[in-house]
């Protein structure tokens, strides 16, 4: 039983990381119907920049806002180089390939700058675990969950309440019409990418004390987060939290009770099943196709 609880804890912490990264997919998908296939790399860059700052002796809590600024800029670059030209020529193939390419370039640059090793990222807490309901949990894991949830809440509130947030939603609904309202839709899309990379960088700083930081850390996380985004639905904030937890927990449970080699399989199979029966995701709204 202890072990089961322990696995659930690990799964939830893991799932919330997936959810934050998945949230980044949601942000850009809603405004421009595009995704950053290099989202995992944005997370990696965030953690590596954070590590550099940490080595300079900057306090962990101060690193978070600094890395968020970096992520914001990185997202802007991705949008500008990879996505904007594709939107202009309405090429789906274009943005898929160019964000993949940018991801590859970012990873390679990181490898050349920071080397190819993985590094320890000093967290704000001691590594000593806390006992909770008979199982261990690290303070850092609690921070991950809290950080992820509050990040998503902040962005949601912004979108629902402020006029700028409504402009984002309007752009998502109908980009041309939003332009006619005087909304700079290009800027909104850039902003959504910037915000998306910001959340990814933030996630990078959050998880690195748990998972280590390294230039190769992005790829696998990007794919998992995508699975979460799709299982939860690209339009539902609640969906990705639930999706993240489902996938995270299924992963740790499979790893323990079946075999760790197969731990990625259930999440991918869940992904395929959800897409086969509910393509808009568990919580997504199915749109009525117009002819």
């Amino acid at each position, binding site marked *: 039983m202890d072990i089961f609880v322990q696995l659930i804890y690990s799964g939830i912490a893991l799932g919330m990381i997936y959810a934050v990264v998945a949230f980044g997919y949601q942000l850009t998908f809603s405004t421009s119907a595009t995704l950053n296939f290099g989202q995992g790399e944005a997370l990696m860059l965030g953690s590596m920049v954070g590590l550099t700052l940490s080595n300079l002796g900057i306090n962990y809590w101060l690193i978070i806002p600094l890395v968020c600024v970096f992520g914001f800029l990185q997202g802007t670059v991705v949008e500008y180089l990879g996505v904007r030209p594709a939107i202009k020529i309405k090429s789906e193939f274009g943005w898929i390939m160019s964000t993949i390419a940018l991801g590859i370039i970012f990873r390679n640059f990181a490898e050349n700058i920071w080397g190819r090793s993985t590094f320890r990222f000093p967290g704000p807490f001691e590594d000593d675990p806390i006992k909770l309901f008979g199982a261990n949990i690290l303070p850092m894991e609690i921070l991950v969950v809290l950080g992820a949830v509050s990040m998503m809440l902040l962005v949601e509130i912004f979108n629902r309440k402020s*006029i700028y947030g*409504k402009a984002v*939603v309007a752009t998502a609904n*109908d980009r041309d019409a*939003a*332009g006619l*309202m*005087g909304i700079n839709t290009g800027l909104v899309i850039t902003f959504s990418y910037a915000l998306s990379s910001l959340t990814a960088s933030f996630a990078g700083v959050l998880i690195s004390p748990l998972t280590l930081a390294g230039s190769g850390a992005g790829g696998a996380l990007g794919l998992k987060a995508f699975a979460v985004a799709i299982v939860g639905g690209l339009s539902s904030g609640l969906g990705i939290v639930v999706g993240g937890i489902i996938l995270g927990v299924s992963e740790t449970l499979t790893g323990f009770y079946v075999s760790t080699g197969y731990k990625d399989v259930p999440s991918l199979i869940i992904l395929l099943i959800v897409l086969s029966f509910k393509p808009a995701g568990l919580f997504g709204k199915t749109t009525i196709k117009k002819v």
Partner: protein
Amino acid sequence: MLIIKDLESGYGKVNVLKKINIEVPKNKVVTLIGANGAGKTTTLRTITGMIKLTSGHITLNGKSIDNFPSYKVACLGLAHSPEGRRVFPSLTVFDNLQLGAFPRLTGSRPRGDFKGDIDRAMELFPKLKERRNQLAGTLSGGEQQMLAMARAIMLNPDIILLDEPSMGLAPILVEEVFKIIARLKAAGTTMLLVEQFAVGALNIADYAYVLENGRISMHGPASKLKNDPAIKAAYLGGH
């Protein structure tokens, strides 16, 4: 107010518009009529920067707006109610109207009496008042057209471009739409009205241009064109 000179534009390599000239004076209603595919919508989309112009000039209030992006044109006081209404389906009626005033609320245009304007818009379109907090996507076609027009007015614009406000509406609703256009005209609003329903447009406009295959084939005071035999044969056929 709005002057279009030797405008050429189109999609890809093909120019849809070939050197067209249109002028919309202040406080007047000008209509642009023609068959589908003649280039009416293309003209409006070029004005608001959704299509790149290849040559010619567009000036608004004496200021060149050639190839300005849509949002800048809007901030300069030109409202465009697009073809097919294009309301924001997942936002409420109120949010839609609020976004109509986006440049006013974000400092790009004078704020004015925003609350009062909302009330006035609701008065002009009583149906919207009942549906204030309903999602725009659930409105009927006619209601969406009303919302689209109200949203355009919320900009406090110097000029409104109306693209096919009667399209796809039942004759009875077409009548209502034209009644509202008439009220706006009476209030002194400058408008460029693109219509396929030529009778209605010519009845309401001060001046009219006829667009044929990307060229202005004829123009003159609306009352005169209405009685032109060629126009009658081509556009006023069955009505």
